[in-house]
């Protein structure tokens, strides 16, 4: 069992409250996933800059002087924002790939959570309320975001096993369910040059979407083909720089509720997660159909 929440804002006036609204939704889903929690938040577009969000088990050592060291290595200005075990590095967009490569030498123990123009991923082991507090998620502004509370069923309870998983620049995936053909898919993807870091099934789902999109599929097409190629149970919620999508497997035993008003589109594993959203009493509330891809764009 796991919990998923998602919020895609249509009304700009709500953007300063995105983090607070998502935090409330995430904490409500603690019963569904008390092991670990994570959130992907799409914030302000950093004009011509890219963000690299990294995590460390030893932030005091790894983050000290990181921006300076990285700036020197790639020959560009880099800034850093430390948030507990995570650090958001910003650099010119054309240096992002070089920065990611340079990090491997500069700080080999760092783990890359996400890359992109607007997306930042924060995830850790612990109760959702503690994880949200560590990263001050409730203070964050943004256009849309996705959160996940994890109750692990098939791989270790670790930071890297927590969701969201990044599927590419400004793209992320969260999952409720379990995939049964992830080992064979992992081997297939490795042949295609796409490697995963953990034994986690969802990471394979994310890598699968990355592969499909590398081969030219749009995210919508990649999600459609996941219905054919992924075996098992899944409710996926995905985020892109300007969009938000939902797909459930054809059996659809993993719960999902959606709500839409003029101000937002919201997703919750249960209706409980949505009850404090503004105007929920009059929102259109429905259960997404099995084997159907839903997508919203700004």
């Amino acid at each position, binding site marked *: 069992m796991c919990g998923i929440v998602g919020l895609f804002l249509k009304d700009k006036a709500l953007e300063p409250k995105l983090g607070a609204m998502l935090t409330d939704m995430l904490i409500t889903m603690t019963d569904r996933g008390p092991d670990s929690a994570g959130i992907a938040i799409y914030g302000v577009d950093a004009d011509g800059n890219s963000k690299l969000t990294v995590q460390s088990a030893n932030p005091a050592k790894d983050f000290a002087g990181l921006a300076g060291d990285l700036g020197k290595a790639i020959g560009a200005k880099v800034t850093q924002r430390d948030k507990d075990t995570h650090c958001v590095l910003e650099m010119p967009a054309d240096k992002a790939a070089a920065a990611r490569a340079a990090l491997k030498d500069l700080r080999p123990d760092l783990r890359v959570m996400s890359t992109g123009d607007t997306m930042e991923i924060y995830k850790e082991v612990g109760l959702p309320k503690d994880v949200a507090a560590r990263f001050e998620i409730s203070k964050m502004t943004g256009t849309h975001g996705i959160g996940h509370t994890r109750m692990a069923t098939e791989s270790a309870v670790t930071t890297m096993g927590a969701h969201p998983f990044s599927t590419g620049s400004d793209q992320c995936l969260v999952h409720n369910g379990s995939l049964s053909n992830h080992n064979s898919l992992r081997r297939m993807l490795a042949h295609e040059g796409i490697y995963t870091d953990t034994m986690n099934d969802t990471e394979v789902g994310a890598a699968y979407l990355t592969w499909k999109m590398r081969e030219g599929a749009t995210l919508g097409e990649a999600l459609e083909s996941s219905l054919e190629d992924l075996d098992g149970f899944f409710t996926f919620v995905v985020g892109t720089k300007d969009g938000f999508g939902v797909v459930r497997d054809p059996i*659809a*035993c993993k*719960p999902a509720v959606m709500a839409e008003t003029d101000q937002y589109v919201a997703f919750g594993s249960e*209706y409980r997660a949505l009850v404090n959203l503004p105007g929920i009493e009059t929102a259109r509330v429905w259960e997404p159909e099995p084997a159907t891809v839903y997508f919203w764009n700004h």
Partner: protein
Amino acid sequence: MQTFDLAAEGLRALNATLQKQNGTTNQTAWEVVNPKGSHALAVGLDAPIDVTVKGSTGYYCAGMNKQATIRIHGSAGPGVAENMMSGTVIIEGDASQYAGATGHGGLLVIKGNAASRCGISMKGIDIVVQGNIGHMSAFMAQSGNLVVCGDAGDALGDSLYEARIFVRGKVKSLGADCIEKEMRPEHLEILRDLLDRAGFDANPEEFRRYGSARKLYNFDVDNASAY
């Protein structure tokens, strides 16, 4: 009317209060406010009382109901009225998956749509849905009636025993051993009564009846691929 504020008093107090009712008082009307999608509301009731939940509910509302009438002024989460024995459950909105699962008796009325597995393994309950139902509904349904005024999803009535299924709209596909059957006068009578009791204005003659072909009751090697 007695009002119970779930936000103030909590779930255990609600169920303990309602389960204590034994039909010896004439104060039988209850209203539950602030349900906020909570789970297991008004479960295990066993008295002819009338409970109205003002809002949407989470998992397993009205489970194991006996005698009581429970109305949900909102939508219901998974497993509403699961294993109901008698009484009536009325949902003004939609119902999530496996509504009325394993129900032995009583009437479940869903005014919106029901998701997948509606009436799975039903054992005597009557379920009337004004909207559509999802896939695998009435899977292994043993007895009772499932009435659908809208459309039915894939694999309707798979591995069906003796439950009757009536659908007015389209059926996406029938499950193993479920077939369309002749609508005889006695079926129209059953259907008319159910629609009346549910309060739905629909013409029974517009419905089709589905039931078991009774080919999978006993193992037959020729049917191996259908099991």
